[in-house]
């Protein structure tokens, strides 16, 4: 589209002048901003630069993945917050994908009741703000759970109360490394078998149930090693001591509320992608497959899915990046993610420019990486044209 250059009278020269004027304007604007900021920072006695990163933070953080004390530095505190953001984003994406697929498949179910329920779910969650869902989960659903002494105990070692969700914590004994290696070996073997079975089928026409063989090796090998090594795994179970539970893995209500809200909200959007993906496949193709006697599972795996994925993946990539960005709402219910920790730092030393710049850099980086991965997956799923 060469319009702008050719249509503007005077062509190239006018264009050049125009661009130079814009650049000069922007440079001047930037200079003004810089000067104002300098003056403001001086007037308010705010330091600049990242020197504060090695200063002692002095504030506690509620849930951390790595050990942290208030005596650690601001830089480390920010890092802990970033880890929490990544943690929520990673597991949120996985959970939202599973629930989203479930919702999307229910939306196109031939069962009227199931399809209706899924539609109500989608239309409700898509039309209210995520923040409202988070507040509701945090201050209505989780608060109404019983106290520690009346904890729900759905299965052995798991306790749910208004202080959090407690699960048994695995304690790896000597020799567990072998079980892990056996698991990895199982994956490698099943991969090789499935590769070989494809070429074997192409040569001879005989198909080998490589999926079952793979499943058997991936589960069988580690289980065998586990017992051969004498069960090198113990569980630490949460116990009620005084007013609260001690030990085990704990998920605090802030984390649970954030996870529940993010996952349910995003799942509604992913469900819609899955629905439109499945519906984009021509019904004639399914009829054709049925008339050949292709089994129901094979129709799903070999006919519907590959075509539906081409519609689903790009839209879902957007929803994944939204989930990552939306995880910043953690700050509203007090889960210490990157924005929440950064906000605390700004409150203490007023160095807003550095912190906000870092936030933006980290989110941009996460989203670039996520969309690079999804683009790679998408290029695999795309129609291969000769």
């Amino acid at each position, binding site marked *: 589209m060469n319009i702008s250059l050719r*249509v503007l009278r005077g062509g190239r020269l006018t264009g050049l002048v125009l661009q130079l004027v*814009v650049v000069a304007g922007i440079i001047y604007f930037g200079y003004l901003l810089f000067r*104002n900021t300098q003056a403001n920072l001086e007037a308010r006695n705010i330091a600049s630069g990242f020197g504060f990163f090695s200063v002692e933070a002095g504030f506690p953080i509620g849930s951390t993945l790595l050990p942290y004390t208030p005596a650690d530095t601001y830089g480390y505190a920010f890092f802990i917050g970033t880890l929490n953001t990544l943690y929520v984003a990673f597991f949120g994406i996985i959970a939202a994908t599973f629930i989203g697929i479930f919702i999307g498949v229910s939306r196109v179910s031939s069962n009227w009741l199931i399809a209706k329920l899924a539609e109500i779910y989608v239309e409700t969650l898509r039309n209210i703000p995520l923040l409202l869902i988070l507040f509701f989960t945090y201050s209505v659903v989780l608060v109404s759970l019983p106290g520690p002494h009346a904890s729900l105990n759905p299965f052995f070692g798991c306790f749910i109360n208004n202080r959090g969700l407690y699960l048994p914590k695995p304690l790896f004994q000597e020799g567990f490394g072998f079980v892990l290696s056996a698991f990895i070996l199982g994956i490698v073997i099943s991969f090789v078998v499935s590769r070989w079975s494809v070429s074997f089928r192409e040569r001879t026409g005989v198909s080998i149930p490589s999926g079952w063989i793979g499943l058997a090796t991936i589960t069988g090998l580690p289980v065998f090693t586990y017992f051969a090594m004498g069960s090198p795994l113990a569980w630490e179970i949460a116990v009620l001591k005084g007013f609260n539970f001690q030990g085990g893995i704990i998920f605090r209500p802030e984390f649970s509320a954030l996870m529940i809200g993010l996952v349910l909200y995003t799942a509604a959007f992913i469900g819609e992608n899955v629905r439109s993906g499945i519906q984009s496949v021509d019904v004639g193709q399914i009829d054709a497959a049925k008339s050949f006697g292709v089994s129901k599972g094979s129709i799903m795996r070999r006919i519907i899915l590959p075509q539906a994925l081409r519609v689903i993946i790009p839209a879902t990539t957007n929803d994944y990046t939204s989930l990552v960005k939306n995880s910043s709402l953690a700050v509203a219910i007090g889960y210490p993610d990157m*924005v929440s920790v950064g906000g605390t730092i700004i409150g203490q030393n007023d160095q807003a420019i550095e912190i*906000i710049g870092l936030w933006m850099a980290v989110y941009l980086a996460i989203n670039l990486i996520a969309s690079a991965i999804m683009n790679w997956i998408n290029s695999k799923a795309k129609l291969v044209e000769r």
Partner: protein
Amino acid sequence: MSPFPSSSGSAVLVFKPRPSLPAPRQTVGIIGWLRTNLFNGWFNSVLTVIALGFLWKIVPPLMSWAIFDAVWTGGSDACAPGYEGACWVFIFNKFRVLMVGLYPGEHLWRPMLGGGIFIVLAALTVFHLLNPKKLIALWFLVPFPVYWLIAGGFSLTPVDQSLWGGLMLSMGLATIGILISLPLGILLALGRQSNFAIIKSISVGIIEPVRGVPLITILFMASVMMPLFLPVGININNLLRVQVGIIIFSSAYMAEVVRGGLQAIPLGQYDAAKSVGLNYWKSTVLIVLPQALRHVIPSLIGRCIALFKDTSLVIIVGLLDFLGMVKASAQDPEWLGHDAEAYIFCAFVFWVICFRMSRYGRSLERQKKGE
């Protein structure tokens, strides 16, 4: 004429189908519907039973909580602890705060009138009662008198912006955000399509970073960082700063929506515009944009819904919008323990507005397909 050639002129065989039998009883009527939609196969039957059980567990208790056992009249003592149902009295009691925030009572008619004008305009839009050109003109003109009504000045007593709040504030932030970010978004989208490398890279340099970061960080930037950018001694209030942040955020998304429309315009349109001697701006404004925008109206409405939902985030930078007022009301010591009612009411209002907008978007889409 007989279908069979008669050889001898004697009895002619005529094919006469018997009247068709009625469809089997199991395939028509309620039973047929149930069989095809709920109980086709054992798997679906099991699903149906599970879903019915789930509904049975959820719906009756919810109905009795929300309607039959709920408290509809009385004062704060009507919802004594131990009462089973929902306390809607709480919502009625807080209704004014939820709608307009701390707006002074003696001027209450002003936001009410403004809201009324707004509702009339929304109704005209949603029910397709005006032609599109008039509608667009009204949407861009009406906010001015409404803003004047609410803010005051010019013979009306000014009302300080720190007193604004509730649904009024959410609607205001969203409406002004959309109306200003749409033209800005169009400019950014045109810039992104431009052949001037510098203008293009500036546009991309604004759109992509803004789309890549959460709204919260932009709101923080507007609220905490913007005062540092202004000349020493000049202060603009937090509401305006947040509004600017929302506009910047929304512009980037609008730009991407508009770009989709621009890319859908066939190149022949540009060539045709050029061949009749239109320059860049004339061909853009008269030929390209009207088609491009018409193309993306449904996605623009999608953006409006998203932005309206997103305005709820301003609570994090200290503004008391609708959700903020709901949260504050739920923490009122006189009415403790009614979080559920507060949030459900809030969700209901958001849902009605957003769902109605999305239905409107869908009706426009259908219209477009029908053309």
